[in-house]
Structure formats: structure tokens, C-alpha cells
């Protein structure tokens, strides 16, 4: 492995083991897999209506395409509907048909599977299927869904509320009533698509002789896909194998189990031929989960000194037509209030939250879930309160940030914070961004107005089984596992219950294990993404990997290291407590006596004259499970500087600084890269990205020409520093960190834009911020309020 020699593998800026094959074009993404002979290529025929009755399906036209065939719900009568939400308090139990029989509920709902000898023929055949629809009125927006007499997306949820929750902490009303200042505002998120650059896809194969069913899928959750295939199709889990090959980005959108995965297996089993579906970009916009069509109504009560007294929020999330699996309809509506309290010290909290069904694409997890909008609301209120109370924005935050003496702290939504460095992080971020000198830069260009913004955010990471049970998400085990097997050579394989979509697991987990084993990371091969190889676990989502799977990796490495020390002690006639493992050797501290790790490993496998110690088992092979007891909360302060061109309203992000504390950093290069990418996934929704429906529920943004993503020209360089406060509640002192960049970017960019607009008296409270909107504000007389 190249790169500078670190003191130890943990913390080293190690170039990634996964890179060379990706750089040479040798990776195997789903559509790169050589398909088995006889494979049928699938196109999913999707509803063109947001809400319609299916009067009939005439597939006779596909006879013109040799070998083409069509499967509808009538051909798969044994397929039960999905039930995304479980019968628990607050949830409406609704059903999602895998193939619609009578009714479609969003543009993109699956009506039929069209199969042919190649993908071109399948597309041709899909054009020849005639579906007779009777269009019905569509509910598109939150307002429509909640209006009197709106009608219902599901009869099981007559008021269209799929999930609701309401909590008021003790003493809230008195604290709220006693506060001298109450600030109120409603913040509106932008409905966005994730756009992993590789669309979803899968390849299903059933071997009746072996009774083996294999699904290759571009997924973040192979074990959960396997579990659902078994649950829905009644298959034995021993006969189903799910493989995530190289996956071209996930960010949450591939953490759900989708109908296409189940239908591909059902079709392959019915027809006795492999079935492949490689979704295209339009499939992805229509059928992969949307996110963050949310609003937060906030009432923030403060005392005369700008100290938070009590906060009440009312959260709405557009859940779309169905809940997803495994996260259900509560993902965003539940996550909003849970993440809202952030890095601040307040006890009195009340919230109401609702997930609302509409005739639109189902919503699901996307980097940060509800948190970017929650912090846009919280930080937006802090800026407004500072302005109203005559405090600086940094001072009002200092007065409310949790401090060292507060930890451990359990916040108003029940989340435990073990330790954090919020004040230091803020101070450092102000220095890194040259915050104090901004006055000198503000008016540097007469053609532009400039603003600077600040956002203090937290990120809840590493959730374990307790959190998922508390959320009613019983399809998510929450545990992770690692099987560490050192071979006789002294090299090891490490099979982890997760799968990687670019996060660098093959490198990071090797670094975490190497620290304990005394061998270089290059000698540890990490295996992931195959239910036949990886031990059971939940999958890669919610910034859990380094904490939840990392806990299993470290535990397994500790178990093997202990055994190696016992064997080495036996070989060297020394006390195992005096053995250290480093640089490929087991040494007796301070004596110069040592054996190689290889010698220890060969002894463990009975390949040496001397055996293992009496009573010791053979082999160096263990599987360890880890359940993270508490969420692990990372924190960051973002500072952004923007300019707005007076002539065009165009926003440019001029400078961007982050100071970040995610505990001990395993590989700073990878961590920085995660934050960079996350920031840009916040910049997009703040400044340009938005999914647009017409009044009939037709999605108008189904290409990358209509749905604008940030390019290299839209993105600034990002200055970043880390504070490493070792976590107390996790193995290895680590915290998760892959979403915080997005969580900080949306609020900080809105804060900077609002700062630039201050002379005009405008406060923007919705994203994306559009140039024409800014132009209108800039051209309006100063002091005119504008939304």
C-alpha cells in the first residue's frame, strides 16, 4: 500500500484498497454482470397516471416481438401485497400491491412486467401493451391531502395520515407561557431525488435443481432484501442468496427493498429463466424514493437573554403513495422531531408530527433524512431570534450550546450525547472561516451582495436495535456482525454484515482490525455484500457502519488477538499479558523475544511441530455481533459565504468552512471525502434541486436536464478541520459521520443568503432558493418583507 507511513493503521490517511479496479474499469456493477444464458430482460410498465382505476390490460400486441411476454397481477395471483407499516400505535396499516390490479396510486406504480430477449426488445414490447385507465382526481400536495373532503389515498387511512406522533414534555406549557419572547416561522423543504449515479437494478436466477434462488441487486441492504424475499414469497432463507455487487452510490435511496426486486425473483421462479432489470434514469426518478417534501412550523420561546426556554414544532412529511420497506411511512415524520433538538440545551419541547399520504412516489431515506430541514428550521430561528434580540448569531448560539459540564446529556427527544466539543468547534469554525473579517469582504464587489451564514448541527449515527424497536421498525435488526478469519499465512479475511457504495469499507474496516492484529491493513481482505459470505446484519445506512459494524470488527479483532497472544505465549514460554502484536510479529515486551504472526497462525492450524496450548481450540476464526447501545452523536459547525449577483440573482458559494467532531477518525482522507460529498448533496437542494409535479400528480422532472444537479462549477473548495473527541459510548471512540455535511449545508446556505438579504428586510424560509426570487427581493424597496 502506498502513502505516508502512519504511526499505526488507525488514523492513517491510507489510499483505498477498492480504487485500482474501479479506476481500471474492472469493477462489476449490476449491469456489468455477464448474464446467464436464457436471461430475460425486464421493463416495468408503470402507470402514467397519479391515480386511476385499471379497467383492462391488453398485452396481445407484444406477439409482434419474438420471445416477448407480459406478466400482470393476474399471472402472479399468489403474490401478497406488502404491508410497510406494522400495527403499532400511531401507524395506519396500509397495503402496497407489488403489481397493481385495480388501482394505481402514483405515476410510476408498477402495472406489468414486460420481458424479452434483450433490453431493446423489452422496451419495444412495453410500448405495445395497452392499459385502459380511468383517471381519478389526484392528491399531490400536503395541503390537498389534509383538506376537508380531500378523499383518501388508502381507505385504511381516511384522513391520509399514515403515521402520527405527539409529545409534550412535562412543564412545557408553563415554560412556554413564561418566556418573554416567542418567534414563529414555517420552513419548507424541497422535494428531492437522490440520484445515485447508478440507477437501481437487479438480476434474479432460480436453480430448481439446487433449490437456490439468487438475486444480485444494487442495494445497500442485502440481508433485508433476503428477509423480504422470504417473507413475501414464502421462501426458506437458506435457499435465498442476495448479492450486492459494486454499487454506484446509495445515500439511502438503495436502503429500501423495492417491488422490482421481489417481482424479478417471482418472475424468474415462475418462468424458469433468469430475469434482469437494469433501471434507467426515468425509472429512477419515478420509482426510487423521493425525499424531504417536508415542512416544519416552529414556535421558539426565549428568555430575555436569548436562552432557549421552550420549543414547539409541527412537522408534516409527504410520505407519497406508500410507506417503504423497512423504514415505513414514519421515516421522515418520525426523524424530524427526533433530530430537531441538535446541539442545544433546552428541556421543554413539544411536537406534533404527521406522515401524509399523497398520490406521488413514495418517500424514503436520503442522506440526513429529515435532519437537513430540521436544522434549516432550528438554525433559521436562531438567526431570526438573534436579529430580534440584538445579539450576534455566534453569541446566541454560545448561550445555548451544550457545554462540557452538560455531558452525558439526554436531550428532549430522549437521545443520549456522551461527549462533544460544541463550543470549541464553533470557535475554531469562526477562525477557520475568518468570520470576524467578513465585514471587509461584504462590499468587495459592487455588482454583488454578499452574506455569511453559520450552522451548528448534530448528526445521530450508529443506531442499534434499541432505537429501531423504539421506532416500531421491527424489520431492522439494528445489529451488525463481523467474521474474522486469520489464515495460516497470517493474512486475514474479514467478512462484514454490510455493503459498501463508495464509503471505503474495504479500507476502513481493515484499518480498524489491523490496529489489534499487528498486521498491515493490506493483509486484511474485507468481504461484504453477499448473504452467503457475510454474517447476518442490517446493512449500510444511517451512518451506522463505523459504529455498528465497526464495533463488531473491533470485537472480533480483540478476540483473535487474545487467542494469538495465548498461542504466542505458549510458543515463547511467556505470559500472554506480556505479548504485543505489531509489525507482523508477536513480541514479549522488553525482551527482544518474538515469533512471526505467521508462525502463530500456522501453529493455530496444527501446521507446526508444537501444538496449541492445552485446552485451546484450533483455528483463528470468530464471528462477533455488535449491538450499539446508544446512538452516537457527531457534531459540526459550517460557515458559508455566498454572493448574489445583483443583475441576475445568481447565487455563488464563495467560501465554505467546516469544523467537525466525529470522535476518533479512522481514515481522515475518507472522512473528508464523505463530508465533501455530503455538503454538495445539501448545496443542490438548497440552491437548485427540486422535483416538480403538475396539478394532476404528473412528475415533470424525470431527466437530468429538468432536475439540475450541482457540477464542479457550482461547488467551492471546502476548508475543513477536525476535532477528535473520542466517543465514550462506542468501540474505538468513533462516531458515524456520512450525513452531517448535508445536514449542515442546507441551513448554512440559507443563513448566508438571508444575511446577504438583510438590508432588504427579507427572510427566506423555503428551498430551493431561486434566482428569480432573489432578483425580486433585491429589486424591491428595502424593508419589504418577502417569503
Amino acid at each position, binding site marked *: 500500500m502506498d502513502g505516508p507511513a502512519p504511526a499505526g493503521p488507525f488514523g492513517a490517511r491510507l489510499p483505498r484498497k477498492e480504487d485500482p479496479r474501479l*479506476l481500471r*474499469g474492472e469493477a462489476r456493477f449490476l449491469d456489468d454482470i455477464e448474464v446467464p444464458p436464457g436471461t430475460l430482460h425486464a421493463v416495468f410498465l408503470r402507470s402514467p397516471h397519479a391515480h386511476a382505476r385499471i379497467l383492462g390490460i391488453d398485452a396481445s400486441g407484444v406477439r409482434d416481438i419474438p420471445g416477448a411476454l407480459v406478466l400482470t397481477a393476474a399471472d402472479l395471483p399468489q403474490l401478497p401485497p406488502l404491508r410497510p407499516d406494522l400495527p403499532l400505535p400511531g401507524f395506519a396499516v396500509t397495503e402496497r400491491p407489488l403489481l397493481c390490479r385495480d388501482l394505481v396510486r402514483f405515476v410510476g406504480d408498477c402495472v406489468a412486467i414486460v420481458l424479452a430477449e434483450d433490453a431493446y426488445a423489452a422496451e419495444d414490447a412495453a410500448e405495445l401493451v395497452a392499459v385502459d385507465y380511468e383517471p381519478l382526481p389526484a392528491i399531490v400536495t400536503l395541503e390537498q391531502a389534509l383538506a376537508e373532503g380531500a378523499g383518501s389515498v388508502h381507505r385504511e387511512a381516511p384522513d391520509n395520515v399514515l403515521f402520527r406522533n405527539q409529545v409534550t414534555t412535562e412543564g412545557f406549557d408553563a415554560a412556554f407561557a413564561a418566556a418573554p419572547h416567542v418567534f414563529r416561522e414555517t420552513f419548507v423543504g424541497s422535494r428531492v431525488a437522490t440520484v445515485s449515479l447508478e440507477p437501481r437494478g437487479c438480476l434474479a436466477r432460480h436453480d430448481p435443481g439446487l433449490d437456490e434462488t439468487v438475486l444480485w441487486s444494487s442495494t445497500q441492504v442485502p440481508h433485508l432484501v433476503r428477509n423480504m424475499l422470504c417473507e413475501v414469497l414464502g421462501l426458506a432463507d437458506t435457499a435465498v442468496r442476495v448479492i450486492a455487487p459494486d454499487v454506484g452510490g446509495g445515500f439511502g435511496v438503495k436502503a429500501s427493498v423495492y417491488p422490482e426486486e421481489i417481482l424479478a425473483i417471482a418472475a424468474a421462479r415462475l418462468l424458469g429463466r433468469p430475469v434482469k432489470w437494469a433501471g434507467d434514469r426515468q425509472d429512477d426518478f419515478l420509482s426510487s424514493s423521493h425525499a424531504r417534501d417536508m415542512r416544519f412550523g416552529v414556535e421558539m420561546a426565549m428568555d430575555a437573554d436569548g436562552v432557549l426556554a421552550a420549543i414547539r414544532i409541527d412537522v408534516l412529511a409527504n410520505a407519497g403513495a406508500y410507506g417503504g420497506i423497512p423504514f415505513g411511512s414514519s421515516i421522515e415524520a418520525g426523524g424530524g422531531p427526533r433530530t430537531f433538538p441538535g446541539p442545544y440545551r433546552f428541556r421543554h419541547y413539544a411536537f406534533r408530527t404527521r406522515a401524509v399520504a399523497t398520490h406521488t412516489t413514495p418517500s424514503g431515506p436520503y442522506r440526513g433524512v429529515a435532519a437537513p430541514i430540521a436544522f434549516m428550521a432550528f438554525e433559521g430561528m436562531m438567526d431570526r431570534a438573534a436579529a430580534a434580540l440584538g445579539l450576534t448569531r455566534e453569541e446566541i448560539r454560545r448561550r445555548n450550546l451544550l457545554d462540557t459540564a452538560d455531558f452525558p446529556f439526554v436531550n428532549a427527544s430522549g437521545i443520549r450525547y456522551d461527549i462533544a466539543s460544541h463550543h470549541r468547534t464553533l470557535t475554531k469554525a469562526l477562525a477557520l472561516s475568518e468570520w470576524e473579517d467578513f465585514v471587509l469582504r461584504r462590499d468587495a464587489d459592487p455588482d454583488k451582495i454578499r452574506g455569511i451564514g453559520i450552522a451548528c448541527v448534530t448528526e445521530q449515527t450508529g443506531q442499534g436495535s434499541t432505537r429501531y424497536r423504539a421506532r416500531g421498525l421491527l424489520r431492522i435488526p439494528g445489529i451488525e456482525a463481523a467474521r474474522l478469519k486469520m489464515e495460516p499465512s497470517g493474512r486475514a479475511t474479514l467478512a462484514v454484515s454490510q455493503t459498501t457504495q463508495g464509503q471505503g469499507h474495504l479500507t476502513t474496516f481493515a484499518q480498524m482490525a489491523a490496529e489489534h492484529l499487528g498486521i498491515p491493513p493490506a493483509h486484511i481482505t474485507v468481504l461484504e455484500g453477499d448473504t452467503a459470505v457475510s454474517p447476518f446484519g442490517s446493512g449500510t445506512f444511517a451512518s451506522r457502519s463505523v459504529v455498528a459494524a465497526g464495533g463488531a470488527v473491533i470485537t472480533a479483532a480483540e478476540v483473535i488477538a487474545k487467542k494469538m497472544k495465548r498461542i504466542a505465549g505458549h510458543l515463547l514460554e511467556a505470559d500472554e499479558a506480556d505479548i504485543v502484536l505489531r509489525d507482523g510479529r508477536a513480541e514479549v515486551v522488553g525482551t527482544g523475544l518474538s515469533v512471526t504472526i505467521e508462525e502463530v497462525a500456522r501453529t493455530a492450524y496444527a501446521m507446526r511441530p508444537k501444538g496449541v496450548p492445552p485446552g485451546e481450540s484450533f483455528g483463528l476464526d470468530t464471528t462477533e455481533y455488535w449491538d450499539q447501545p446508544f446512538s452516537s452523536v457527531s457534531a459540526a459547525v459550517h460557515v458559508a459565504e455566498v454572493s448574489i449577483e445583483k443583475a441576475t440573482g445568481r447565487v455563488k458559494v464563495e467560501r465554505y468552512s467546516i469544523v467537525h467532531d466525529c470522535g476518533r477518525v479512522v481514515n481522515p482522507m475518507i472522512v473528508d471525502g464523505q463530508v*465533501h460529498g455530503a455538503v*454538495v448533496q445539501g448545496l443542490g437542494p438548497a440552491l437548485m434541486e427540486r422535483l416538480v409535479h403538475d396539478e394532476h400528480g404528473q412528475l415533470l422532472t424525470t431527466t*437530468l436536464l429538468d432536475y439540475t444537479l450541482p457540477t*464542479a462549477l457550482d461547488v467551492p473548495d471546502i476548508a475543513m478541520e477536525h476535532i477528535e473527541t473520542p466517543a465514550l459510548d462506542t468501540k474505538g471512540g468513533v462516531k458515524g459521520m456520512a450525513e452531517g455535511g448535508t445536514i449542515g449545508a442546507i441551513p448554512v446556505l440559507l443563513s448566508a443568503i438571508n444575511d446577504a438579504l438583510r438590508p432588504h428586510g427579507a427572510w427566506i424560509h423555503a428551498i430551493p432558493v431561486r434566482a428569480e426570487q432573489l432578483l425580486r427581493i433585491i429589486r424591491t424597496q428595502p424593508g419589504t418583507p418577502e417569503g
Partner: protein
Amino acid sequence: MSTVEITVTVNGSSRTRRVPDRLLLADFLRHELRLTGTHVGCGHGVCGACTVLVDGATMRSCLMLAVQADGASITTVEGLAPPGGLHPVQQAFHELHALQCGFCTPGFLASTIELLRENPDPSETEIREALHGNICRCTGYVNIVKAVRRAAELMRAG
């Protein structure tokens, strides 16, 4: 469906195939020649993942038919370096962590190679302009820009 015989030089080897006239160049490379390093991210010429070098110039292989490449010389990601080696641009992307999931990377490599051939010492702005036809969802472009500068150094030194 009509088919046409085409001869294309791909990564230095002459390949003759009879192909459907509607076959996209991307599908020809990926599924006929099994050169699957070229990826299709959008299918409508925006994301740039399918970018290859056709007679030395970057082209979207999802917007070009295979028959249009008849007689052309094409370089895909598989042909950038000898087997087992890395082109200086690939090396720089590795050193500076300019890729995460790697799906967009072959397109960025092609665009970078074209840029550095025309401009061996590009400024940051010139790099951003040259790469703005390639979308990356993972890296935020920060390390890609740095890697292109590093690649320029390596190639000037090399």
C-alpha cells in the same frame, strides 16, 4: 430490424461486428465487446459517466450510435494504461481520493485526459469548466479538482 457491419478500433484492437443500426455505442462497448468500464448513468447525455474518447475527443457513448463509430478509434477506461498499471490521471485520482463509488470515474478520466492534452497546466477554474459536463454524486468534486492538478504535475514531470 436492419443490421450494419462496422469496424472500430477499440483500445488499439480492430473489432468488426454486425450490429443493429439502432444499437448505442455505449451498449456496443459494454454488451458486445464486454468493456463494461464505460457506465450509463442517465442515457440522455447529461451525467457524462459514459464519456469515451473517439478519435481522441470526448464523446457521450449514450448519445452516439455504434454505426456512427464505424472507422473510428475509441479509447475506453480499459485502454488508458497497460494491464496492471495506472495512467498518471488514474494514479492521481487514487492518491487524492478523487473517487468513492467509482461509477462516474471512467467519464471523469476521459474528460481529464482530453483537458490535460490541450492544456497541460490548467488553473482551478479551467479544470472546473472542463469537468462540468461530468456529474459526480459522491465526492463534491473537491478531490477531483485536486487530483487533476496533481495529474497535470505527474504528466508534466513524466
